[in-house]
């Protein structure tokens, strides 16, 4: 349980803690990693960045023993190692923390931390010693966690802390973190950053894989940029900027982060009107959406943005209030009705609630419009294929074949398949819930362009995003939610980061005064 002591200095401080020499890995015919050579200094935070498919996660998994390299050598603390499993890696002090924490929800937090290394007495787990060890560990790690709560009740951010503690309990010296903040809200992210800094300060070496460049720049000592499985450059984070990293990732300069805003016509009609809507997690929310307008829905995680979106779309029960689409069509009853009325939603998680894995891009794209592509209940395959191909191409889905299962596509392309499905519905209003989560920079821009071009054609867009930049960069107007209510509406000059944050964070006293 020593765990958090000062780093051992068995070698000179100049020797890197981890060295990769000419590491290669291919999946089928795809060269995921191509002669990657990398040195990670002890006690540093070393970030790996790159587009989806650049090979950063593959590299992280090789280091942590979840994958084995096809070629090349790996030196840990100067000694050659080759891990055949995460367990072997852990025995040598290398642990991995993933985006989705590996926990047993039924066990308590402390039991999860000491899973398989529980302090025992005569073969039985000694609860007293377990609790004592847990207390010692949290104290050393510098954060609190309720040890006796069952782990399933923890929030995602806290579940990750369980994994961090687990790594520390095994005396891990090198921790690989793959997108640790992807599922976290702003304040939780801040907290995790603190923890990462503390770990590095106590001599742990961190490999940080992240899509968030601002995070990388504020946390990392060194950044390695990967593109197509090759190291483009390794540099001190202090010498880099977001645009220099993006340029290295893409291999070309990125001209604009957001497409230009085209404000809707002054007399554009309201296409979606939500009045005093109450639903699970939503209390008397109201807002309007006009044709051609992009409205950003901002708020903290748990403020009820996704819940509002789901209620408007009809995926969650509406308790009271009204959702009206142009022409008086009442929606909010069922997804089927909403889709028929031209109200579409890109759900928050494409994996859990978006795509049908195992089915082709074509079938996924056509799913919501299948009835229109069939006669007498029989799917007209050619008509389906042509319609789907049309929207998939328009959305820029790239892949081996549109007939192959969507599983094979990268995250960005999967998201574009969902966009294609929405496009095929001929939407009048589109609700996009975190449309760019987990996609790379290139795909992000394509999704922005998709949304702005739809708006330019008169579609009303409700954009939910946890990235304020995205909200500010795309929206014509911002609605802020807090505790299930719509508490502020910002436009023009009032639409800025601090105004959004103060509305989102406002304390309860002022929240009570909002009608």
């Amino acid at each position, binding site marked *: 349980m020593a765990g958090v002591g000062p780093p051992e200095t068995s070698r000179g401080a100049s020797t890197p803690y981890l060295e990769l020499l000419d590491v290669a890995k*291919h999946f*089928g*015919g795809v060269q995921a990693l191509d002669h990657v050579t990398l040195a990670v200094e002890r006690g540093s935070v070393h970030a790996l960045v790159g587009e989806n498919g650049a090979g950063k996660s593959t590299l992280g998994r090789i280091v942590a023993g979840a994958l084995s390299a096809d070629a090349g050598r790996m030196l840990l603390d100067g000694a050659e190692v080759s891990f055949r499993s995460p367990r072997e890696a852990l025995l040598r002090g290398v642990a991995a923390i993933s985006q989705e924490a590996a926990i047993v929800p039924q066990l308590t937090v402390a039991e999860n931390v000491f899973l398989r290394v529980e302090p025992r007495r005569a073969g039985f787990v000694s609860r007293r010693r377990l609790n004592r060890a847990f207390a010692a560990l949290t104290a050393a790690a510098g954060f609190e966690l309720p040890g006796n709560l069952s782990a399933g009740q923890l929030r995602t951010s806290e579940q990750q802390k369980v994994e961090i503690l687990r790594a520390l309990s095994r005396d891990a010296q090198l921790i690989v973190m793959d997108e640790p903040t992807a599922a976290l809200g702003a304040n939780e992210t801040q907290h995790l950053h603190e923890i990462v800094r503390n770990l590095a300060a106590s001599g742990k070496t961190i490999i940080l894989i992240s899509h968030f460049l601002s995070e990388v720049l504020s946390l990392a000592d060194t950044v390695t940029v990967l593109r197509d499985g090759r190291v483009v450059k390794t540099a001190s984070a202090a010498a880099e900027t977001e645009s220099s990293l993006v340029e290295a990732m893409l291999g070309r300069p990125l001209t604009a982060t957001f497409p230009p805003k085209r404000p809707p016509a002054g007399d554009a009609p309201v296409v979606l009107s939500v009045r005093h809507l109450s639903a699970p997690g939503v209390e008397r929310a109201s807002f309007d959406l006009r044709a051609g307008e992009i409205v950003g829905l901002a708020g903290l995680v748990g403020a009820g943005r996704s819940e509002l979106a789901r209620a408007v779309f009809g995926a969650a029960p509406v308790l009271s209030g009204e959702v009206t689409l142009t022409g008086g069509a009442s929606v909010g009853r069922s*997804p089927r009705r909403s889709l028929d009325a031209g109200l579409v939603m890109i759900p928050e998680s494409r994996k*859990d*609630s978006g795509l049908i894995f195992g*089915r082709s891009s074509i*079938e996924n794209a056509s799913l919501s419009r299948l009835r229109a592509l*069939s006669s007498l209940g029989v*799917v007209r395959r050619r008509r389906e294929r042509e319609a789907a191909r049309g929207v998939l191409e328009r959305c820029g889905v790239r892949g081996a074949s549109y007939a192959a299962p969507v599983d094979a596509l990268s995250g960005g392309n999967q998201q574009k398949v969902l966009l294609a499905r929405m496009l095929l519905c001929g939407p009048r209003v589109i609700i996009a819930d975190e449309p760019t989560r987990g996609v790379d920079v290139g795909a992000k821009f394509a999704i922005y362009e998709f949304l702005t071009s739809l708006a330019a054609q008169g579609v009303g867009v409700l954009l939910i995003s946890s990235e304020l930049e995205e909200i500010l960069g795309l929206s014509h107007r911002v609605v802020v939610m807090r505790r299930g209510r719509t508490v502020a509406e910002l436009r023009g000059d009032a639409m800025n980061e601090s105004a959004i944050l103060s509305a989102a964070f406002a304390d309860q006293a002022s929240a009570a005064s909002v009608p």
Partner: protein
Amino acid sequence: MSIDVDVRRVFRLPEAEGGLLGLARVIRLRSVGILVPFLILFVVLSLTSSSFATKANLLNILDQQSATLIIAAAGTLVLIAGGIDLSVGAIYGFAGVTSAHFALQTSPVLAILLGIGAGFLIGLVNGIVTTVFRINALIATLAMSFIVSGCSSLVTKGNLLVLFEKTDFGAVARTEILTVKTSIWLMVAAVVVIGLLLSTTTTGRYMYAAGGNAEAARLAGVRVGAIRVLTFVISGTAAGLAGVIDTARVLSAQASPNDTALAFTVLAGIVVGGTSILGGEGAVWRTVAGVLFIALIGNGYLLLEFDPLYEQITMGGLLLAAVGLDALSRRRA
């Protein structure tokens, strides 16, 4: 042995060949999966037993398997849509005794309709219980299985219902058209209709979606509940039809505890064919191949005079291999 060949073919290729070509080949090989062992077994039996590849033997196999094939074809839809139906054996038995009971008293047409109708109704109840009341399908249909078997005993009062004089009822399954019995024709018709429903219609597509990812399907506008209810109704109706056909085929019916076990034989056939127990993947033709593959093993044991004691062990091993293959391919994906 035949499964071994398949495993090697399907899972060693990508490493040896690599590339998208290799990937495409894996997908294709996996999708024909069951055909390879089926054909090998067929050829081996033809070579080792002179009485195997005769028209009489093969038609006899089809005649005997007609009920199982109909139920399994419908069960494939249930599995693909994300459910499971363990009550089909009991429904099959109940439909059999119901039709026998009424065949003794009323017209054969009415008896047939009542038998199939009973299956339809029980299937509807299964569907409503599992989707509206959200009771786990495994447990709900297991419970239904007990209830329905009990009802069968009530109908027969423990007797064997003998229909030897009701030849007009028996004609449903025993008439020969083009030297092939109507039991087989009915089976072929039912299997083709169910297969087309799954592979060509919007409803079939929705079944794959509902089983592949229920929440995603719902948000895409698929009425997942209705689709699942439909699969249970089809399954119940098919089991009813199968029960009527078998009763007409052997001209007798009784409440037998063996009937409930038919659900497991059916499930084995579906899974050996390669339809995923987890939903979202599979096909009716695979189920036909799976059921017949198991039937061929039984037939082979008989013709080659192997000790029939080992037949069940072989079946169990096969089932494990089939499920293992499915799990392995999912892990790869």
